[in-house]
């Protein structure tokens, strides 16, 4: 039997080898880095520039000539007084504060109901995921009809109350907000359910069994064993929904157009309207930058907190 000797190659090639593997990491991250730069650099620079001007496409000059309409910080001081902006921001926070906990609790409840096997589990599980697959814009049209005063929602309510219900959901500021929130909860509870179910299934069964043997009640087991083990996944699930919910636009816009009045105007709808209808783009740029800076600070802080707590828990 022949024995292969050590591969003999030139020293140069061997050195190249080591460098290659260092370089590989660089090349692998390069496309993502370039795409981020591509979408970030020009827009940010341009936004900073035009946010200091009164530029609007209605002025008939190109954006790089916006310095003719220089207003220094007028847009930013306007922003401080723009009640509609602040109330849209507050409303977005309110929507988030209602939607995310509701989706979480519903999702968690469903996940608990689905954690054990039962006949029909697979089928019902698939059915529950359907709302996630419906395009939000389509959902917007559907919910618009569902919430008409002569629509199915009132029909169902009439059935249960036994007397005809004719609530004008989308014409009342509070009820309209309720209606769009319902559509959001309908659409995104399945995602919560999916993530939390994965988390529940991941809790080691022997721990639960041991606790059962020790006589722990169901609630005790849940609070002392299950929830702590699911901490990370719960944070992740909440984070995803908070992030996506902050940007909510499609179904809200189609259902109500932000109305009645501004009753369902979220920050995205507000910016959309100011951008597309009022066309005060210098001002929009200021709004965008303020949001960008705020979000950057908040997310950097959150990441720092999260990675620290992760290290601690290790």
């Amino acid at each position, binding site marked *: 039997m022949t024995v292969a000797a050590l591969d003999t190659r030139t020293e140069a090639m061997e050195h190249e080898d080591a460098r290659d593997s260092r370089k590989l990491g660089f090349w*692998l991250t390069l496309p*993502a880095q370039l795409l981020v730069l591509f979408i970030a650099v020009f827009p940010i620079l341009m936004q900073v520039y035009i946010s200091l001007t009164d530029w609007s496409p209605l002025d008939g000059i190109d954006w790089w000539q916006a310095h003719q309409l220089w207003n220094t910080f007028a847009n930013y001081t306007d922003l401080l007084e723009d009640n509609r902006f602040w109330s849209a921001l507050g409303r977005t926070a309110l929507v988030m504060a209602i939607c995310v906990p509701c989706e979480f609790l519903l999702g968690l*409840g469903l996940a608990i*109901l689905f954690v054990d096997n039962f006949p029909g589990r697979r089928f019902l599980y698939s059915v529950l995921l359907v709302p996630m697959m419906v395009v939000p814009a389509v*959902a917007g049209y559907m919910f618009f*009809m*569902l919430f008409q005063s*002569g629509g*199915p929602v009132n029909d169902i309510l009439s059935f249960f109350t036994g007397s005809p219900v004719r609530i004008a959901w989308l014409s009342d500021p509070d009820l309209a907000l309720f209606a769009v929130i319902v559509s959001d909860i309908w659409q995104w509870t399945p995602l919560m359910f999916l993530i939390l179910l994965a988390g529940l299934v991941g809790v080691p069964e022997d721990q639960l069994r041991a606790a059962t043997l020790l006589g722990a009640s169901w609630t005790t087991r849940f609070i002392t064993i299950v929830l702590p083990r699911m901490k990370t996944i719960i944070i992740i699930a909440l984070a995803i929904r908070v992030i996506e919910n902050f940007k909510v636009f499609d179904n809200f816009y189609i259902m109500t157009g932000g109305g009645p009045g501004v009753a369902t105007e979220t920050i*995205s709808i507000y910016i959309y309207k100011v951008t597309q209808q009022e066309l005060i783009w210098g001002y929009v740029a200021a709004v965008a930058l303020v949001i960008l800076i705020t979000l950057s600070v908040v997310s950097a802080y959150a990441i720092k907190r999260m990675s620290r707590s992760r290290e601690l828990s290790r």
Partner: protein
Amino acid sequence: MNRSLPFEIFRYAAILSLVALSLVPTLWMASMAFKPIAEWSATGADLTWWPKSPTLDNFRFLFGESSSELIVALDRTAGQPILSSLLSAVFGTLIAMISGTSAAYGLSRFGSGGNLPLALIQLRIFPPMAVMIPVMIMWAFLGLIDTWYGLALVYGIVTMPFAFWLMKTFFDDMPREIEDAALVEGCSRLRVFWKITLPMMRPALASSALFVFILNWSDYLIALLLTTRDWVTIPVYMASLSSSMTGQLYGAKAALGLIAAIPPVILGIAIQKHLVRGLTFGALKQ
């Protein structure tokens, strides 16, 4: 857990009622899609839960057969928007998956990428509406307005963070020894990634791609602003479905809504067994 009879009854009741509740809007849409015009034209006036005389007219209408009742001329059928949605969402998903996956691998294995994770989170949190003005101007400059590839590029960028974070947790989870073994057995680094890592990640790639695809497929806002005529997508096209005689063509909208649900549902079924594991961002590692 407890298996007492009252508990089981409660459980089934809770599950079935929640499932029924979540099905109402979808069923409403499905029933709407098969209703003839007379059953949906009057807003909420004639409330029927099931089509009295089911018809495929709404689907036929979408694909160019105009109904004598609707006196409406669409300048195009639903075919082109469906194609546009498919092309932009599929290629957007490819861009997101390719750049996101390779960056995730680079970061997970070589620690490359610096501040990329933070930048990507910020990219994902930021409402796209707020940057659409410069993006529109950029896209116009690059000649990408109203093209499916221009749309795919934006989709790829805005969903890349999702792909990145999902794939990174899978890479972090994967035993290093398997790659080491391939290295020892004669593969180059790149070849290990290609021959061993990626094939092993197939389920992870499939579930991540599904979620990224759903995000891209769902978009309304970006397509609304970056397409004008030839490449409008399904959600944007849906706004065109109105007629001077009957107002909103809810039947046609519902039919298109049903069609629009097909690709995600098919993908979802195809990767069903990986779905649960797919969205946990590695939190199950424990």
